[in-house]
């Protein structure tokens, strides 16, 4: 039985913002123009001081909360966090979700038509970084007349994007809420991303990224990439308790078909994802993760990198998250402390690994609610 979510923002719709000023990217490439698809919830106040930007993670998008009129089952990915009366209360805040540049849900990206060739960009779409996104967020804010975000918030890659904005445009961010993120990926984390990329790049249907004109799709590669990713987003314990060694048909079959429930689950997740997501965007997003490192221009000194930040920070991690472990969040906290910036940090007990940041959890949500309540607008 479906229960009605009384706190949901309800029916929402996506809109599109067009930008004609050329955007110089970190890679050296320039985009002449681009579009960003976005959603907003709540009302921008007269002082324009209550805007909260939500940055999405690897596979996320602008549909953060609410549902679509024509697809009531498509609930926003952070609907449990954002809405009227929710931790990020849309009665107080004007909440913005943007699909990042390079995404595959409506913003300009590899699937978009390249004006110069009349074909889809594919691999010709430049690699974009969190710094490039930060620039697009600022231009977006300019269009709305928002001088300063009350807060910028995100989990995982979204948390990194939030940090990047707080570093690149310190005067435009009052609060940064960084959840299940890292100041930079570890070698192990990059390694996982590389295996995911190799799965896609070596798929015979990939065709150097131009699968669009070949009428193919690197489905196997993307499916494998997602399966691998999914394993790293869960914890050993949560997998054990959810699936254990349970067999689908109760007995060993002595063949290579799906036997264990965990296999069935992973295949399902892989299939579902491969049907909905663009492989080139997946590649690009994993690179944005790998490249994120604010300390790069500071001889690896993270504290020096954070010297320019001005925002107050809330940093949250989850005990069972081994892909973005609490230790990595502590790196961020240390850099903030070294600069005497306002920061609070909590490690939330959770069994669900990296995915915890998307889950409903009372303590987690109470912390965010308490923090957001204290933001003056």
């Amino acid at each position, binding site marked *: 039985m479906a229960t009605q979510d009384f706190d949901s923002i309800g029916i929402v719709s996506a809109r599109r913002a067009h930008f004609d000023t050329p955007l110089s990217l970190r890679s050296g490439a320039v985009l002449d123009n681009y579009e960003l698809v976005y959603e907003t919830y709540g009302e921008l106040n007269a002082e324009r001081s209550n805007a909260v930007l939500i940055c999405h993670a690897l596979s996320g998008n602008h549909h953060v909360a609410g549902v679509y009129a024509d697809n009531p089952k498509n609930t926003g990915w952070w609907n449990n966090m954002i809405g009227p009366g929710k931790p990020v209360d849309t009665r107080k805040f004007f909440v913005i979700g943007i699909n990042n540049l390079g995404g595959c849900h409506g913003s300009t990206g590899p699937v978009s038509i390249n004006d110069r060739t009349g074909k889809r960009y594919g691999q010709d779409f430049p690699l974009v970084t969190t710094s490039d996104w930060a620039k697009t967020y600022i231009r977006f804010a300019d269009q709305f007349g928002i001088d300063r975000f009350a807060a910028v918030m995100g989990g995982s890659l979204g948390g990194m994007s939030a940090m990047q904005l707080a570093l690149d445009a310190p005067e435009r961010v009052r609060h940064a809420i960084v959840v299940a993120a890292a100041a930079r990926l570890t070698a192990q984390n990059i390694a996982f991303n590389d295996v995911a990329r190799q799965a896609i790049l070596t798929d015979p249907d990939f065709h150097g990224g131009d699968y669009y004109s070949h009428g193919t799709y690197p489905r196997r590669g993307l499916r494998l990439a997602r399966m691998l990713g999914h394993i790293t987003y869960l914890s050993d314990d949560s997998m054990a308790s959810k699936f254990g060694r349970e067999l689908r048909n109760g007995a060993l079959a002595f063949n290579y078909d799906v036997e264990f429930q965990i296999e069935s689950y992973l295949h399902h997740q892989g299939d579902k994802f491969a049907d909905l997501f663009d492989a080139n965007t997946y590649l690009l997003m994993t690179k944005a993760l790998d490249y994120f490192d604010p300390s790069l221009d500071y001889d690896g000194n993270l504290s020096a990198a954070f010297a320019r930040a001005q925002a107050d920070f809330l940093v949250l991690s989850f005990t069972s998250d081994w892909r973005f472990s609490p230790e990595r969040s502590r790196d961020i906290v240390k850099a903030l402390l*070294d600069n005497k910036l306002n920061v*609070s940090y*909590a490690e939330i*007990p959770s069994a669900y690994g990296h995915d915890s940041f998307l889950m409903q959890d009372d303590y987690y949500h109470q912390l965010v609610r*308490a923090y957001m*309540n204290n933001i003056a607008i």
Partner: protein
Amino acid sequence: MMTTEAGRPVLTLRPDFATFAAWIRPGSSVLDLGCGDGILLRYLEDKLDIRGYGVEIDADNILACMKNGVNVIQNDLEAGLSGFEDESFDYVILSQTLQAMRNTEYIIREILRVGKEGIVSFPNFGYWKNRIQVACGNMPVSSNLPYQWYDTPNVHLCTLHDFEQLCQQHRVNILERRVTNNDGKVSFSPNLFGILAFYRISHIPD
């Protein structure tokens, strides 16, 4: 005047806060170890415009700090203050937490590593009423030591003399001492008549 959520003045509820406020320079940086609900930091921020951070391990306290609008860092004090640089704070406070620490010597060293000064307060086990209870054959239970022997978090209770001996052994310089009972300052025989002890300490350079 700062009041609590229930509307009571903070100083009525926590008279010990006045000692901290008297010792801390306005505008300084303060790290409060085992900061509880953060109300001391809130008080010091409002009264003295300090830059404050609390350290806590208890989830309910962390949430309470967040509600009170003070910075709080989740950290296990028993593991030290590894995320904090040397002399990065003007003051490091350990308010009525010393007696509940297992690694007593280690946390004192850490306080004086991270803080230019430390401020430590603890219940004086040498208080005469405690002594009488022990003399009568029972572990002391009072408003300042409200626990039974079997459920107390206090594993390292001490007297003023004990603490001062520890300071001597560990090159800890006692800059100032204040001992109080329910009526205020105690000057006469503080190890016998004092309920709460406050010490402002610093590290004696090698």
